[in-house]
């Protein structure tokens, strides 16, 4: 294993767990898979196998993971939808790692992705020198996955141009790829499927066509279910990020994390956490990932210009930036939230309330 690598693929990082699960396998294994669907679920949601602890990779509704795995068993393509920061790519990578032991057959969807990257392109030097031949063919990750009967991943599919997206249609319905230049067709082996991810906030960038959507089973990944869950995710991640950051600031205390998570959850869902009061939801993205970056930002502020301890003042300025962004409407939302909710929360919140009020 390469220790210098900045980031290892999931199947190498969790090699031991995967090996243990494969060794302990008793249930039937679908064609092309490395382990049974139930073991895949254990790998992702955590558990024990032969006394070895499997770390949970995805914290949230296990049922969604079950649906995702079942979809891949039925050889349907899987589309993971969700707001930014809901662990779509993370889940997709781990699914591929557990099912095939290979999460690297991936196409990153961008505005610049071309149809060739989905299907195949040519090594032009060789093409000119020798004419079309199999050696001159540069196969896409999907092409490889079809030949080998494994999973291919397409990230941020809705960022690709429509014609590029549509190149997937024939692959998903015919389950074969044609290379007319060589008069050749490559049928997909059993076990081939595609996991795509798309961002719900990107809706309308390149809306997926109905024809393509129809070929996917859609699983929507929600924002964290409970305050505790979200706080856990935010806290662990901030700790990891702060470990070698050099921000010169103390970690925000539980109280600050709780406040930020509470505000985010309430503005996201449009009601207070105790469900007693409805409020106007914000239009901006307020994901757990956003909360993480907000806290990091507060730490950097406190370290560089403050006392080194994240105070209400730093929180307030980061909060305002994160919530209002450039939307004018959000000023209204934030103002109303401060008056109707935060003001009435009592002593622990009054410091933050004052700090926010002063900035408005």
């Amino acid at each position, binding site marked *: 294993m390469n220790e210098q690598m900045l980031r290892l693929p999931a199947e190498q990082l969790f090699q031991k767990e995967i090996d243990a699960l494969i060794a302990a396998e008793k249930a039937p294994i679908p064609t092309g898979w490395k382990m049974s669907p139930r073991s895949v679920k254990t790998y992702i949601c955590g558990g024990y196998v032969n006394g070895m602890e499997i770390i949970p990779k995805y914290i949230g509704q296990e049922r969604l993971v079950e649906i995702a795995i079942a979809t891949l068993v039925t050889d*349907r393509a899987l589309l993971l939808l969700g707001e930014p920061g809901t662990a779509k790519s993370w889940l997709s990578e781990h699914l591929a790692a557990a099912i095939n032991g290979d999460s690297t057959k991936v196409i990153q969807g961008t505005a610049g992705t071309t149809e060739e990257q989905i299907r195949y392109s040519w090594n032009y030097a060789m093409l000119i020198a020798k004419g079309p031949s199999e050696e001159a063919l540069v196969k896409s990750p999907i092409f490889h996955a079809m030949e080998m009967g494994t999973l291919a991943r397409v990230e941020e599919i809705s960022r690709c141009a429509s014609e590029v997206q549509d190149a997937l249609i024939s692959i998903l319905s015919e389950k074969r790829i044609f290379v007319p230049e060589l008069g050749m067709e490559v049928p997909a082996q059993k076990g081939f499927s595609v996991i795509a991810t798309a961002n719900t906030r990107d809706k309308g960038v390149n809306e997926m066509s109905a024809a393509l959507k*129809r070929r996917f*089973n*859609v699983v929507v990944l929600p924002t964290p279910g409970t305050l505790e869950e979200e706080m856990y995710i935010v806290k662990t991640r901030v700790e990891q990020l702060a470990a070698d950051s050099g921000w010169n600031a103390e970690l925000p205390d539980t109280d600050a994390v709780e406040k930020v998570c509470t505000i985010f959850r309430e503005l996201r869902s449009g009601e207070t956490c105790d469900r007693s*009061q409805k409020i106007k939801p914000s239009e901006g993205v307020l994901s757990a990932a956003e909360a993480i970056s907000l806290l990091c930002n507060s730490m950097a502020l406190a370290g560089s210009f403050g006392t080194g301890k994240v105070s209400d003042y730093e929180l307030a300025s980061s909060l305002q930036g994160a919530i209002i962004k450039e939307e004018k409407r959000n000023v*209204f939302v934030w103002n*109303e939230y401060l008056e109707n909710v935060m003001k009435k929360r009592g002593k622990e919140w009054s410091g933050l309330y004052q700090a926010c009020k002063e900035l408005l």
Partner: protein
Amino acid sequence: MKHPYIFGIRHLSPAGAWHLLKFLEEKKPKLVLIEGPTDFNDQIKYLTYKSTEPPVALLAYTKEAPVRTILYPLAEYSPEYQAIVWCKTNKVECLFCDLPSDVFLAMPAGRKTVAQGEEETITVYERLDRYLGEDGHDTFWERTLEHTLNTGEYHEAANLFGENLRSCSEGSEADWEEILLRESYMRREIAKAVTRGIDPENIVVVTGAYHVKGLSDPAGHVMTEEERWQLPREEIQYTMMPYSYYKLSIQSGYGAGNRAPAYYGMLWEALKREDISYAAQCYMTKLAEYYRMEGNMTSAADVIEAVRLAGTLARMRGGRYPALRDLRDAAITCIGRGDAASIRNVMMVTEIENKLGGMPKGVSRTSIQDDFYRQLKELQLEKYYQGKVKKLQLDLRENISAEKEENAFLDLHRSNFLHQLNVLDIPFGRKELLVQEDGTWSEQWNLEWMPEMEIKLVESALRGDTVRMAAAFLLRKQAEKATEAGKLAGILERAFECGISEAVEEITKRLQALAVEAVSMKELTETAHRLSAIIRYGTVRRLDAEPLKPLLRQIFYRFCLLLPENSNSKKTASVISDMELLDRIVEANDCLEDGLWLQTVKGLVTGTDVNAKIAGFALALLLEHGIIGKEELSLEIGRRLSPGVSVDSGAGWFEGFSMKNHAVLIAKMEVWSSLDDYIIRLDEDEFKRALVVLRRAFSGYSADEKMDIAENLRILWGLDSRQVSELTDAANCSTQELSPEDQQFLEDLLRFEFEE
């Protein structure tokens, strides 16, 4: 010793019904005993009438207030119902064998719905669900027991389940005593049958799986005749009533209902076809059909994929066929494209379907009817129960001279009752409008009874067992449907009028939710107005309006935020009337900060992007509250009416400004001199426009006030008082004396087009 056969079932379980039928067919018993109250034995025959159509419910209720009820719902797929029908077709005797319902109702716990003793073991269920990762007990049961076509297997599994459940919780249930009592009673019924000469082997007892072990115990105690006499009893009445799938689906608790009656109906159909997978196919196809009806695109391929996915999900859980939970998740994924919200409604329709049961005519006398007649008597309204209009004057305040407590508030209770009936669309009493301004303690009613109201009453039976419950249910329903805060506030007001405090809380919460969404000033004002009325007059109805205050405050705050945004709206009239109303509300309610209100209004006076008329009105409001200084006032008048200001801003502003404080304005000479100055500088066309606006402004002034204004102008222009009085007298006479030119001019003005 020979034993009767005890068949363990789960209430409302299609598989239980199917296996029971097969078993009865094979065993051909002479007597079937069913776990159900013995005092309903006379009613069994109604269940097999041709015109009886399940779902139906057996209902027992106490005659005395507070009314307590006990309900036994039966669907087509209830094992009990199928057993009864089987007995009828095969001419086999069929009896209930559980404790009579009058004993149930007399027991101290005061149980409201059927509780079969298993409710208390909820922790066992929860532990089981958590262990298996299922979402509820229904799913566990369906996966384990509903999908088998092998009767032997079913028996064993059901009995094993019941037995294990019992051993997990035996003795620890809160109603353990009651369970033992019931079982000893059932044993007694069995023994009674045996003494009649029926061979125990020819008896089948249909009972909850939980009781199988208890009843099979040969050493179990059999209730003696003496013990039976000692059982507490309550005077009760029985009825049978048509039930609906909807009612089944909202009843919680084991035996009282299930979440998806229509789906269980499909499962029953599937069992009859001996093809379990039919249920999944039927569910998905129906769901897709409803989804299409809502205008969504769903292809047959989607339905196929959904059924496949549901199957895979079931297999991951070790099941053979998909359970409802798998079907739901697959439908969301494949048909709803991952969007649960878009498909939830359709899912509800598929699972519940609006199926109504039917009963033969004359069988049912519902509890709500009883409740109605009981209240009629209690509230001394019987003399009004006739086809002639009679007047009734109510004083809602406490009658201090009354000796008994219920008499002290008799009129209030009467008013509540009549309001409740009105909510149920039974206009027994019609309230006369506005006897007192804003309605406080006095009400005037016209009472008249018509036969069709009886039918309405019976129809309301499904909404609740008493008039009050039914009204509360309906109000809640209406509140759920309401999408405008103003309307919802109206419903809240009605809940107050009905004296239904428990609905008030729920509606308030929803109102709060809606008020957040409300963007129209009109809606906010209407809501605030109604809330304010409730808060002010709630005490006379002896209801606590305190929880409404924060809500009123919130709406008020929102109004203050929205007002500046709407202040350049073209709908000046409606904004001004909203402001006027809110001003009154702020004054009437101490809980609102008038500081914030006045500050908001002040913002309008000087705001740049504010419609002139509204700005004028805002100034008038400040003047009325006496918080604007003399200098500030003159400055503002001078600024607004300075030469060169356009007609719309100048005259329009004056129109708004002069809507209030007439006397104060008349006394302020500088107002008139500024106005005079302003008008003189207008050119012909501008003057015509201004005239229309000003005429409208002065139309709100009384004749005397107009005279005073004329007097002001006389002084201003230095005219002789006699000359002026001639002119004004003429003006006060009718318009008939106008010259043709003036007439023409007036008509032109009438046709004048405003940009407003």
